[in-house]
């Protein structure tokens, strides 16, 4: 499963994007379940965010969903942290 997270907005307005392939990873099962939950908690279009809040685009095997701070579900928050954390 390929998971990509793109974060835009924020006070700095700087875009960050990270992508990973779950295949063969030690946390593959966790990532797959987070990805499914995060997508189903997401919205089909970009939600209107709060001023300076981060906006997120989640893409899982080509399926996209959107969410924005500070209204993330727990799976969205963990997935975003794990995927963007890959580059932190």
């Amino acid at each position, binding site marked *: 499963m390929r998971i990509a997270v793109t974060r835009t907005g924020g006070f700095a307005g700087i875009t960050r994007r990270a992508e990973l392939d779950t295949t063969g990873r030690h946390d593959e099962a966790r990532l797959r379940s987070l990805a499914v939950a995060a997508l189903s908690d997401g919205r089909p279009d970009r939600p*209107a965010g709060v001023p300076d809040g981060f*906006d997120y685009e989640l893409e899982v095997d080509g399926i996209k969903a959107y969410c924005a701070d500070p209204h993330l579900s727990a799976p969205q928050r963990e997935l975003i942290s794990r995927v963007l954390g890959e580059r932190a």
Partner: protein
Amino acid sequence: MTNVPAHRPVFCPIVPPHLLESLARHEDPEVHVPARYTLELDAVHRTRRRIGAPVAVESAVAEAVADRPNRTIYDAGHEQTLPGAEVRAEGAGPVKDQPVNHAYDGLGATFEFYLKAYRRHSVDGRGLPLNASVHYGQGYNNAFWDGRQMVFGDGDGRIFQDFTGSVDVIGHELTHGVTQYSANLQYFGQSGALNESVSDVFGSIIKQYALGQTADQADWLIGADVLAPGIHGVALRSMKAPGTAYDDPALGKDPQPATMDGYVSTSQDNGGVHINSGIPNHAFYLVAATLGGHSWERAGQIWYDTLTGGRLASDADFADFARATAAAAHARYGDGEEHQAVLKAWSQVGVAASAALPRQAAPEGAPSSSQG
């Protein structure tokens, strides 16, 4: 996946009406109930504005509101649940945790600025309590206004450090509140870039006011103190020279244009609100630099009149805003150097402001200039 359930709709007063309207038609009550409620509130608000009540009410209420802030600082404890535990209330002394004190002092400096410079009591003009949460999330690289309060992350220490450390950042965030309670510029596209720009303008002015600087002494930088050591850059944005604030392997290069030639069309960042804000930011800088002296006195007053005068549409684009600033300058100062500086500044950034001067009613507190 076409029928993704929307469990967590975002509802705040700044949602663009067209989105609210489509949400209001959504089949899921969890989505449409709050959207319909917000639309009704908006309608009530618009009606009140049309009948002209708020200005009179606002000034009457302002007389009764104390000239002191009412601040409460919360500690989110590195979680992302707001507001967190109360750690410092109004009037309480400093605590050991410095971000708490920085937030408390920054809210105080912003309150004092709006009161002294424009006789505005807090962000809503009616003494709204000012709340802020610090230590939001783990190494969280951001600060934002959630429609009700300020939220500060600690930064990851690698790219950003503590967001409470910059008074212009605090002024920027609270000005989102001022905008929400006045022109309510929609946070998308050009009106969103104007919303961002107004926050940068007053964020910078609040720093200048705190330091007692004139326009030529000011650095015109936003977020200079939140960049971590080692990052190649001076700040996150420069109003004097948009596009030059940073150029760093981890951050990329400052993408801000200074003029309409560099206008960026994008669906990210709510339509590039933090990118294209460079254009109105630079226009303001040019007005302030031309007029000289303290930027909150004439340049800032013109922008403040524009924001709070009740004539600016919430979906205003750059040209609407430019014309409104020219009209505000004319209404307050007549056809003098202020009006000319505004027209010239917008022309320099490529925005037309010089359409036939609208016959505009004088803003709150201004001498009547046309229909004496």
